[in-house]
Every structure is written in C-alpha cells, then in structure tokens.
C-alpha cells in the first residue's frame, strides 16, 4: 500500500520539476485530486520534493479547509453550515450526524463507510437546511430524515 502510493505520487511530482515552496498548494491539490486525501506518506514525500519539513507541509495543508487527511468513506456526507442553513437549524443536524455516524467533521468511520465534512455553503439556500451524500443533495433535512438516509445507506451495505 505504502509503496504503491509512493509510486503513484511520482508522475504527479514529475509535473512540478525544480519546484520551490510556492508550488506547495498546487501540488497538495493535485495529490488530493488523485488520492482523495493527503496521507502521511504523501505529505512526507511532497516535503522531500520541495525540501520542506513535514511539519510545514502539514501546517500549510491544515490552514485550508479543502484538504483532508483521511480517505473519504464510501458515503461522503457533506452538511451545509451556511447562513440560510444555520437559520434553519443546521447546528442540530450536524450534532445528529456526528452522533449517528460516530465521526467528527473531517473524520472517516472505522469501517470506512462514512466520512463527514462541514461546508460553508452548498449554494442550495432555497433547500435549507441542506446536506449531500456523494454529491446527491438532500433538501429540507430534519433529524428524522437524516437518520432515515443513514439507515438506507447501511441497509444497502448489508444487502
């Protein structure tokens, strides 16, 4: 696994020959695009490519919300915390999600099934409060409906 990831990273890094520290964010974006997240192996390897310490690469990556450090779950849940959704009670929904999925934002459940991400606005304010699972948007969510959507995902896995 580790070896193959290092190998997979090589062509991406080759797109940035003789790169300096200003290439860090584009490289992080390309690696996340390809791998779905930034692993420890990737961060250490990118650091070596740019001659930057791993602490610095990790520090820069954690500054931005767009980077994640765990692989996405099979069902990637995004909950909107934008203004409209906030007014419609998305705090409560986030709390329900955290408890039902047993993960915090940015984390992935141990079985690899669910990952949770908080986004600032989905651009679906008319559907507030909104949530999405693997890109499919769910409108006017309630705690009950969240539990139903999660249960459906679980049922699909059992079948």
């Amino acid at each position, binding site marked *: 696994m580790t070896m193959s990831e290092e190998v997979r990273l090589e062509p991406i890094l080759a797109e940035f020959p003789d790169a300096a520290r200003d290439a860090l964010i584009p490289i992080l974006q390309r690696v996340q695009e390809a791998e779905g997240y930034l692993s*420890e192996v990737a*961060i*250490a390897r990118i*650091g070596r490519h740019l001659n930057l*310490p*791993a*602490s*610095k*690469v*990790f*520090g820069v990556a*954690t*500054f*931005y919300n767009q980077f994640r*450090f765990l692989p996405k779950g099979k069902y990637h849940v995004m909950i909107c915390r934008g203004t409209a959704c906030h007014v419609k009670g998305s705090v409560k929904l986030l709390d329900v999600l955290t408890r039902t999925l047993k993960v915090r934002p940015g984390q992935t459940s141990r079985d690899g099934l669910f990952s949770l991400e908080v986004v600032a606005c989905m651009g679906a304010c008319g559907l507030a409060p909104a949530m999405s699972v693997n890109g499919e948007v769910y409108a006017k969510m309630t705690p009950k409906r969240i539990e139903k959507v999660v249960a459906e995902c679980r049922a699909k896995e059992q079948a």
Partner: protein
Amino acid sequence: MLNVEVNDRTIAAKPGETILEVSRRAGFQIPTLCHLEGLSPTGACRICVVEVENAAGLLPACSYPVQDGMKIKTHSAKAVEARRTIVQLLLSNHPDDCLYCSRSGNCDLQQLARDLNVDRRLYRGARSSYPLDVSGAALVRDPGKCILCGKCVRVCEEIQTVAAIDFLHRGSKAVIGTAFDRGLNTSSCVNCGQCVIACPTGALSERSNVQDVLSALADPTKTVVVQHAPAVSVTLAEEFGAKPGRDLDGEMVAALRLMGFARVFDTSFAADLTIMEEASELAHRVATGGTLPMLTSCSPGWIKFVETFYPEFIPNLSTCKSPQQMMGAVIKSFWAERNGLDPRNIVSVSIMPCTAKKFERSRAEMAHDFVPDVDYVLTTREAAQLIRTAGIDILGLQPESADTPFGERSGAGKIFGASGGVMEAAVRTANFLLTGSELSELDIQPLRGLHGAKELRARIGDLEVSAAVVSGLGNARALLDAVKAGQKQLHFIEVMTCPGGCINGGGQPFHTDPMALKARMRALYSIDRSESLRTSHANLSVKRLYDEFLGRPLGERSHHLLHTHYQQRDVLI
C-alpha cells in the same frame, strides 16, 4: 545617520534600525513577546506597539524601521493601554493556574500582566483546550498555555533547522504542533530545549524529575549519587539572583551533600576520560584510514540530528559515549564493584545544562542488563528547584571538593561547557599522545568565542590537522553539506547543539542574554587558566581508572563501557 526623537530625547540611528533597537539603546524598555534577537521580526504579538507622531495608528517597534525626524513615545497613555488590552486578550484564552505552572515567577506573560496592572480577568469567552503532549522523553508541550508568538517555531526552524513544530490549522483553531499533530516522540525533535528557553510562557518545559530525585533521596535502600556537568557551576548562581559568570562549583558540591547525595562526582572528570578515548579514536582513524572527518558525540541533540537528517554521517560519529554516560557507566560498574553495591540499588543522578540528556539517558544502548547507567537527569533549573525545596542557602555555603575517585578534573574537562572547549581539550591531549610533549601554549584562541563556526589548522607532530567547531544545528547542517559537497577537507569536527555550547543549553536559566552568555564563557576559561592541572592526560584519577580497571583507551573494557553505536531514525522529517 538619522535623528530620531524617543520620549523627547534625540538619538542618532542608522538607517534600517528598528524603533525597538533605537529605543533600547536610549534606555527605554519596550516589552516584547514574539521578538527574537538576531532573527527577522514577525510583528505577531503587537505588545511592542508605540505611538509615533503623525502615524496613522500605533506602530510595532520590533519590525518598524526608524525614519529621520520620527518622534516616538514608547510609553504614551495610548500605547500602554493598547498593550494592556493585548495582555488582557491573551489572558482571556489562558489558564488561570499560575500557582501550578513551572514558569510562575519566570513567565513573560505573568510579568507583563503585573507590569501593566492587569488585576482581573476582563474578557470571558470560549477557551481552547488541548491535551498535554507528554510523549517526549525530555520535553513537555502544553498548547493550552501557548500564546502563539511563534518563537519556538522560528528557533526550531531557523536556528536549529530541525523544524519539528509549526503552526497548524487557522484562526481560533490555530495551534503549534508537530507533523500530523502527533507527539514529539515520533517527530524529528532532537530535544535540544532551545524552544523551552525561547518560550515566554509555560507552554514548553522540560519533563521534570525533581520529585523522582527527592523520593530516591528519601529511600534508605538506595545509594543516591550525583554528577554535575562543566557548564552548570557557572550558571546555577543566576537562579539564586547572583551575577552571570559566578562559579558555584564548591558551594554546589556542599549543597548536594547536605541534601543527602552519598557521593558528588564531577562530570568534567568524565570529560577528561572522553578526551582520552576520543583522541585515541581520532589517532586510530587517522593511522588506519578510518572514516574522516570524525564528529564529536558529546551532545545528544546533535547525535539525534545526525541519526535523523544525516544518517550517511553515522560512521563519522565518534563511538565515544558522552561524558554523562561514561560517568554513568563507570559508577554502575567500577564504583559499584569497589563499594560492594548492587547497581540496581544505586540511583545515579546527573545535573546537566541540557534537556536532550534526558533523552540520551533513556536510549536503550545506555543500559546494562536493563539497569540504566543514569537514572535521572536534572537541568540546571531543576537542580536550583531541588536546592530551594531543601531550603539551602547555597550562596552562603562553604565550598567543598567533589568526591574521589571521580572528582578530580582538569581545566580541559571544564571547558567542555563552551563551544570549542572539546576541541581545545582534544588538541592539548592529541599533541601529547602524538609528540610526547606538551603544547607550549595551552590556550588555543581560534577555538574560543561565541561565533557559530570556527576553524583551526595545526601541526601536531608530522600531521597537519584541520579541525572545525560549530554550534547551533543550522551551522552544523551548513558544515555537513560543505563536507558532503567536497568543499571541506577536515579531520575532526566538534559540534554542540546549542548556539555557544552548553553554557547556552536548553536546561539553563531563563532569560539568558548575550552578556550573560559571555560571562559564563569567560568564567569557564578563567577556571581553566587558574587550574594547575590543565590537560586530560595528566589527570591522575583518570590514569588510575585505566590502571586499575579499564586497561587502556579503546581497550576491551573501554569498548564495552565507554563506547556506543547509533541508528537511523524513522521519524517524520
């Protein structure tokens, strides 16, 4: 030349000088938190803001260059009130547990709060809470006490080029941490403790062993012995309010005895022993075509640095243990045997100017039959704490001498505490070993002083020796890169992890300024000059130890007890 007015006094200033530099020269103390002498300013904390006539707002003194005709008020009502607000805001997200904090009485934030008449918690709101990082063998991180000044990050990255820590996350979630926010133990941290010295609060500290040592002293089944490093006796006095550079060697020995240590040994004795082994090892490498340049191995932060960042240089490292570990090994072998003691019932304590020594003692190679050679390492600061706990007025004690058989030391062993000292001691002895005669002038001036990099070319017998001395790991990195690139042909390199050597170690008293550092260094060299015994090979106690126990330098017993090996470190770099 520019003319600047500071608090109505006209001061001449050079272009490029900051408001802070000019004001300090004029005698006005502007407080700082994030400012680090010698490094580029960041202006992160804003505590140094001053009022400047016709400026739009208050200006940060640490980063703002003076201009001709500038009129500065360093302590105007507006500036002082702004500083007070900054401290109050910092305190709004800071624990109120000063009573239990290791930095109480020594904390820049606490001092500022007092100076600025902050008498209550003004702002209340959400407080961040973070777990302690107690994973490191030497250092403890408490991000809850961190004010995000970034000094530790800059020292670690810019001076030591280790960069084990950096700012993580953003805004109210910003925190200083290691890569992947894991413990220090899996990071590239070399335990040098320069971050602890830089930290204005209690967010970084050494892992304290004061209670452990007190318990050992109270245990009648244990024989507790102590050794103290060369750089401790010239700094300990500062912890008790005396001037930097005052030597408390004899008083410290007396105090340690009063506390109940069965024997007080001098690590400088082991430094002499180190020189015998190291000089022999160098001569052997030169004669047999061994790996050169040989790198000194006394400084455990440096050792871990090589293991982590330059594993290809591991064969260059001298296999000699550090003086602390040599002393530890002979205490629990030769001395235990002589006194009919089971090594398991000996508690061996060492007082060091260093935090990395705590890590060094915990290395698996530094134990025999699962009994560690050194049980507890106390920093100079912890030793002072121990003396205070015991209620001893150290400055008023009559000086006493260290115990035999490991109490006699040469001036050469004593100057181990300053950058260049190990090399000077080694050259004195190497000259004797190779030519059979003493150097006509024992003081080797090119090796002295606080410069980060020094070089020496000397003729010893038939041999033209090139040596280099560096302190601060950034300087060490530059030198290793030059050696790797083939730009430097050297026989011997002395490296000390901390800038200036052990006198500026991570375990030394807080608030060390360049003047204090110079005073400590002068103290070491004046002790050496006043000593009748000034070379390691003339130390009769060392000679006796070889005759009665060790055999000869690099011999079988020495190899077993006094030498070690190193390993590449698998950590995130």
